[in-house]
């Protein structure tokens, strides 16, 4: 049946689900080439030290070993916007697990055998693991040569001769005057732990440096253009000499944003005479060396009126970036300003400090700081509400940002659906009725910005059979980008869903895009594809007007065909307009689209003010639970998760993002903890020892979608991916206090901490991790 029904909003099947179900979907580690070499990395066993000697002579004699490189062979540094990290350690190691020697051999057996025969002598230096210690002037410097590194001083401000690589400042109103006017002052310190991203696919990269000087990397990379840019800058090349191809990713969650496995594969490929080099991280390396969600300390002080209005807030955030910057400077900025919460607080003061330590590097994680900030500000909010006797939902409604209010960064956002999410969540939880006996409950609200500046672009071409290839650099990692981009393209073109094929991601084919991160793709790439499709649609209409001898204004498009309105006999199918084959009277249909949010501005580095995001994610989430006070075990009964999508483009995708994000929130609130021993070694670097939620641990989740159309979003839509991970830990902590009257300010919330808080365990009885 011919129809011009919209393909937006319904539960649309994922376009790549079939190939994933039959096992034919290709991931980076599945790719192989003739004459390919296999890499093995020798890593530092110590947290801080000078490399005195490297002897590779015995390793080089192993049959099948082709290439061995050390830091001095590839003296390049990467990380944007602070180029501090070498491909392999140069002269010094700064954390346990840092790469020191890379080996490429004909097979894994030879590479593994050679790795055991590398001799390295180190001179130990004092290491620093505690960011509170590391930020003091007396601490040993992790990077004494910091002043020699390239950095973008427009984006962040280091403190010279210290381990503080970024000091973020937000100043708004008069915070001291605000405290002076307040009836109550509340203070709290909240700690979020380091944890691993837990993507099931280990990082993998295959690098080929061909004899023409082109570098190609097939990689588990979320953000191919970002990675190509970083690699090219490090190598001193134009970006086009680095081609990054990202197939399907087996989960990203931020772990695969930016360079991870790539520099090591590239270091070997540069010295391997045109042979491709494959490097797949072991799971142990994923834990010790690929990156973590870093530990954070938040100290928050709020001035509150008698009725519950927050009129002043001062926050200090300490970000532990580990041994290198990675996203540290921007995480410190975006995370620190997010510590103010989704509230209209007239007087604000934030200091964020991003600090080097001798630990595995902190990388981006789904929500980019808002998970850990919301643990602080939403725990703090319930502590305030409880102390002054105001209902937790009422105090939030009193302080929540509404349309027309300014954020802490001085922006007046459009289409603010915050209160709608809170109302939906409270209604679903029957908040106005009393809770079930023996249980605790809580509702939290959060706001998460998206990265800016944030350009995306896309191409579309019509194929000879009237189908389309859409070229875009948004990487599919399970978030459903190929499906939502397919829907946006089909809707804009008037094409059938099955006629759209997404080609992603290959920087030699798919045009520039900032990143697959920050819940930005539906909004930014969606807009780019929408514009590319409008461009193509115009070309189609021009041709069809000619073919059908009709005025353009009389034409309409649906079901992959152009129709003359009111005349069912006059139809031009797309395939007759394609203009692909030789001899076609028409040129090909090729559209292009670019989207850069026009109205964002840079930050003022002294005040933290600016319009720093094109849209916000707004969420409210509720938890019902009970706690066994004999064992400290938390049983979750239900989670309600409400989000403002702008417009829901695919109901199933949104529900899937919510359930998965909430599950990560639960797992990291209750279980996950990357534990370091006193020498800085990760002591639970395997999935067997690192506790994660399993099929038994996730309660029923009710997903609620609120639609407040965003004026700049494609069809009103914005992102959703990160919202569900935010707030869950605070909701659990708040519901625990509601249930049993104890407050946990330190994640994860383990049975030991609960029993200690109940006075049933003494701190001296808890075995220290070793």
């Amino acid at each position: 049946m011919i129809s011009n029904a919209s393909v937006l909003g319904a539960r649309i099947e994922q376009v790549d689900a079939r190939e994933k179900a039959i096992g034919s979907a290709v991931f980076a580690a599945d790719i192989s080439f003739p004459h390919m070499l296999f890499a093995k990395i020798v890593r530092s066993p110590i947290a801080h030290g000078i490399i005195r000697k490297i002897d590779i002579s015995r390793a080089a004699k192993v049959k099948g070993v082709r290439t061995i490189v050390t830091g001095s062979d590839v003296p390049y540094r990467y990380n944007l916007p602070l180029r501090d990290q070498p491909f392999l350690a140069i002269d010094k190691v700064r954390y346990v697990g840092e790469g020191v020697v890379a080996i490429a051999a004909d097979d894994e057996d030879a590479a593994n055998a050679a790795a055991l025969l590398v001799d390295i002598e180190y001179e130990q230096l004092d290491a620093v693991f505690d960011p509170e210690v590391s930020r003091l002037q007396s601490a040993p410097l992790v990077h004494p040569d910091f002043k020699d590194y390239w950095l973008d001083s427009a984006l962040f401000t280091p403190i010279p001769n210290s381990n503080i690589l970024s000091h973020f400042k937000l100043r708004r109103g008069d915070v001291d005057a605000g405290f002076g006017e307040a009836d109550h002052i509340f203070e709290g310190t909240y700690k979020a732990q380091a944890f691993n991203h837990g993507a099931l696919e280990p990082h993998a990269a295959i690098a080929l440096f061909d004899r023409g000087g082109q570098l190609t990397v097939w990689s588990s990379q979320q953000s191919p253009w970002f990675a190509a840019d970083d690699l090219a800058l490090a190598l001193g090349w134009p970006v086009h000499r680095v081609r990054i191809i990202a197939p399907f990713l087996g989960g990203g969650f931020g772990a695969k944003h930016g360079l991870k496995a790539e520099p090591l594969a590239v270091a070997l490929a540069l010295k391997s005479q045109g042979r491709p080099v494959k490097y797949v991280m072991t799971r142990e390396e994923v834990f010790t060396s690929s990156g973590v969600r870093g530990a954070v300390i938040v100290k928050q002080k709020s001035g509150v009126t008698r009725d519950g209005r927050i009129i002043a807030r001062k926050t200090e955030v300490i970000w532990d970036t580990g041994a290198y910057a990675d996203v540290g400077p921007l995480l410190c900025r975006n995370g620190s300003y997010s510590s103010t919460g989704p509230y209209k607080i007239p007087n604000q003061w934030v200091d964020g400090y991003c600090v080097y330590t001798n630990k595995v590097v902190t990388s981006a994680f789904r929500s980019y700081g808002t998970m850990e900030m919301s643990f602080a500000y939403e725990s703090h909010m319930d502590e305030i509400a409880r102390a002054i006797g105001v209902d937790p939902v009422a105090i939030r409604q009193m302080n929540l940002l509404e349309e027309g209010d300014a954020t802490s960064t001085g922006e007046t956002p459009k289409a603010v659906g915050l209160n709608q999410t809170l109302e939906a969540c409270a209604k679903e939880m029957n908040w106005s009725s009393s809770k079930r006996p023996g249980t605790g409950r809580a509702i939290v609200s959060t706001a998460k910005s998206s990265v800016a500046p944030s350009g995306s672009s896309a191409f579309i071409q019509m194929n000879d059979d009237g189908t389309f290839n859409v070229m875009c650099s948004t990487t599919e990692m399970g978030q459903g980008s190929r499906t939502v981009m397919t829907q946006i393209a089909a809707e804009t073109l008037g094409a059938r869903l099955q006629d759209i094929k997404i080609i992603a991601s290959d920087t030699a084919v798919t045009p520039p895009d900032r990143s697959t991160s920050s819940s930005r793709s539906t909004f930014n790439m969606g807009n780019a594809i929408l514009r590319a499709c409008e461009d193509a649609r115009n070309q189609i209409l021009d041709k069809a007007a000619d073919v059908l001898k009709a005025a353009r204004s009389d034409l309409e498009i649906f079901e992959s065909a152009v129709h003359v309105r009111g005349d069912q006999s006059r139809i031009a199918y797309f395939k007759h307009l394609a203009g692909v084959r030789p001899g076609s009277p028409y040129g090909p249909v090729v559209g292009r689209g670019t989207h850069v949010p026009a109205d964002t501005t840079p930050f003022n580095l002294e005040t933290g003010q600016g319009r720093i995001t094109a849209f916000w994610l707004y969420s409210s989430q509720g938890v019902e639970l009970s706690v066994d006070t004999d064992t400290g075990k938390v049983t979750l009964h239900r989670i309600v998760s409400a989000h403002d999508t702008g417009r829901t483009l695919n109901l199933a995708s949104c529900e899937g993002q919510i359930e998965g994000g909430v599950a990560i929130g639960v797992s990291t609130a209750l279980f996950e903890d990357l534990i370091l021993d006193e020498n800085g070694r990760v002591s639970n670097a395997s999935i067997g020892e690192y506790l994660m939620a399993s099929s038994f641990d996730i309660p029923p989740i009710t997903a609620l979608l609120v639609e407040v159309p965003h004026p700049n979003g494609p069809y009103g839509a914005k992102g959703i991916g990160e919202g569900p991970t935010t707030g869950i830990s605070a909701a659990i902590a708040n519901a625990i206090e509601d249930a049993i009257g104890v407050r946990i300010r330190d994640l994860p919330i383990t049975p030991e901490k609960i029993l200690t808080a109940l006075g049933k365990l003494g701190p001296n009885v808890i075995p220290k991790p070793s």
Partner: protein
Amino acid sequence: MSKSTKFEIELNVDGEVIEVSIRSHHLLVDVLRNECGRVCVKEGCESASCGACTVLIDGTPRLSCITLAVDAVGTDICTVESLSAPAGPLHPLQASFIENHAIQCGFCTPGMLLSASALLQAKSNPTADEIKEAICGNICRCTGYVRIIQSIAAAAKAIHRSSP
């Protein structure tokens, strides 16, 4: 680690007899992926704790990352490719996973489907707890398991309906 000599073995993979050249310490996961063209068998942890490498050996779910290739000689090894013929209809579990949106990144999916298929072979109408038990060794970081559990239950019903 000294490199031992390679030797030939025959493996029966998805009904296909494949001759491969291996060393005695080679793991089944690597041999299936590198020598047998079965990159659908995923490797996530090398330590028997994530379930991504699950295959069926004589019908029982086994972790190919802790199975020596030589120990699989003489057995029937099934990967996710055996669940449905290339041009044929999908296995009810595959269809149910797609329909119920139980697949996000897809990396756990082959192992998850095989654990589920062994469950449904043993129990035609499993309870929710039996489903959770069957897949508790298969880690999924994307979905929160909710839809995977629903999909397996729905597939069990579908199989029951089609062959009462």
